[in-house]
């Protein structure tokens, strides 16, 4: 069976070489040092089109992390709240949380992402009529603007966003693309995490709680010393899977033009024609990210797992 596989792979490789010769495609990763030739809308590093392509890929990876890490934090907090809400003694809260879970997890993430992007770019007012829910915070079609703590020269001060002409200047800006990806990813993952949290807490046997009560522990003490440590054992491995899914799902950002890794790779394929190399880079980066996430979560899992249990 393995030898059949080997023959198949050899045949595919042979075809690739044939095709590449016929179409005059060159192979290799040298193109990473050519000028990228395209602009990137946002990012942490400074960047312009004349810089080499590898720097564009680095921007893409940083942009992926810039959206994936905050999403993981928000999804975990929100998911825990919804999960607890589904176990509440108040029926209306329980139903509300159940409704959130059932409605969000049965709609594809891509569609939710497109909906958020549409809502943020079409339903919000123009920059000139931006909504200001709090002083120094502006929301409009142009994105979210927050006050920024900036240090110029010697003195540090709050840099408040303000309207200038038809646009908003100053402050710390988050693009609608970024916000759409962040919201969609956080909400979609939160409902899956909510189910994990609920399952984890329900898996704590009633006897444990009763025993704690018999010892005279107060409800908060029971939660802190009995329920949470026991539930975490069931929650953490499943949570790891959700974090892995979330970081892979951040690749959907390509659909709304947020310049993360896949989006940069897509542009590079169209510009340089090096499809194979670009896809290899994307896969390698995601595999590395998955590996690091799994490693960190396994370390954490070792801390919460039952001592001596395998």
């Amino acid at each position, binding site marked *: *069976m*393995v030898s059949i*596989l080997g023959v198949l792979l050899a045949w*595919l490789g042979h*075809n*690739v070489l*044939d*095709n*590449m010769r*016929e179409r005059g495609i060159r192979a290799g990763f040298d193109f990473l040092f050519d000028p990228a030739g395209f602009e990137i809308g946002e990012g942490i590093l400074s960047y312009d089109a004349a810089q080499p392509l590898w720097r564009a890929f680095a921007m893409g990876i940083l942009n992926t992390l810039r959206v994936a890490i905050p999403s993981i934090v928000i999804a975990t907090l929100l998911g825990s709240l919804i999960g607890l809400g589904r176990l509440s*003694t*108040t*029926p*209306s*809260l329980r139903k*509300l949380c159940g409704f959130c879970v*059932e*409605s969000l*997890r*049965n*709609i*594809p*993430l*891509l*569609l*939710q992402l*497109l*909906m958020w992007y*549409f*809502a943020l770019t*079409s*339903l919000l007012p123009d920059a000139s009529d931006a909504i200001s829910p709090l002083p120094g915070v502006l929301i409009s079609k142009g994105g979210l603007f927050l006050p920024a703590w900036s240090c110029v020269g010697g003195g540090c001060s709050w840099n408040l966003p303000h309207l200038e002409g038809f646009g908003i200047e100053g402050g710390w800006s988050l693009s609608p693309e970024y916000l759409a990806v962040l919201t969609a990813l956080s909400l979609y993952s939160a409902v899956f995490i909510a189910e994990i949290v609920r399952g984890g807490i329900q898996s704590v046997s009633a006897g444990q709680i009763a025993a704690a009560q018999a010892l005279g522990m107060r409800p908060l003490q029971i939660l802190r010393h009995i329920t949470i440590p026991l539930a975490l054992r069931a929650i953490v491995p499943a949570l790891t899977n959700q974090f*892995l899914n979330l970081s*892979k*799902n951040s*690749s*959907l950002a*390509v*659909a709304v033009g947020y310049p993360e890794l*896949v989006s940069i*790779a*897509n542009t590079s*394929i169209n510009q340089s024609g090096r*499809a*194979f190399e670009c*896809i290899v880079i*994307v*896969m390698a980066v*995601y*595999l590395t990210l*998955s*590996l690091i996430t799994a490693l960190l979560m396994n370390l954490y899992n070792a801390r919460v797992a039952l001592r001596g249990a395998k």
Partner: protein
Amino acid sequence: MSALKHLRTWFWLILAALILWPALNWGVVHAVWTPDLEACRAARGTGACWGVIAEKHRLLLFGRYPFNEQWRPLLASLLILSALSPIAFQKLRTRRFMACGLIGVLLAASLMTGGFAGLSPVPTKLWGGLPLTLLVSLGGTLLAFPLAILLALGRRSTLPLLRSVCTTYIELIRGVPLISLLFMAAFLFPLMLPTQFRLDILPRVIFTIALFAAAYLAEVIRGGLQAVPKGQLVAAQAIGMRHWQAITYIVLPQALRAALPAMVNSFVGIFKDSSLISIVSLHELTGALSLALGGDAEWRSFYLEGYIFIAAVYWLFCFTLSAASRRLENHLNHK
């Protein structure tokens, strides 16, 4: 304590009313139900324009498939849906019906393609909407199935080389996003075939979805295999069955039955993931929306209603399938 509880209940009821009332007002009370552009424009901001669905439902559901031939994708969708019905109805879970379902899926695909019995051939680039979503997700899953079984058995094999090949494949595919595999289908697969041979994007994408689904299904089936007690295999060998006979006739049927609810959940995942093929420009349900509204200057302003409609279609499918899977699980647990 009881007063506090009442207070909490009222708090939630009032909050729900604050959210529900405007939604009801917008979606039902002030909504426009007829494809009347003037009325829709007048109601803008106060009421929904469901007229856009009435106007565009053919494009949304069937994409650019030739208008007069759209009974074909409709019939194809119904065929695929009936092939899925054994998941929900226990009485239909017979071998004969499932074989019919498999033929139904093939029939649906050939009905869409045409070119026989007086049906005009329709190129796949005109396919779209619901039948495409169904065909890609179910076709992909069915194609994935045999590979998934082999991978699951391979991962539990005692041959180290086979085991590591299967494990590497499963972990590799599960570690990368589907979109990177779809880019492979779009850009790389044409390079992997002999130079004179050209394959359409749709079969390439279905094949890719199958390769992707196989890795996830394999893990689910492996779970099922682990649930079969070891004594079953030993007993089968004791009555003189060969190893592969014992696996095929004794272990696999029990493993697949145990894994059935999880397999349905996997299918729901694939169904939702099939929306990604709109990124490689196939106009299934998600992609059909931009097809229907993106180019139309007049109806374009009612995108929100379009999104809600498509979301409702997805929701209905996924919710029904998940509920069926939960019922299946209860049924298996109580047997």
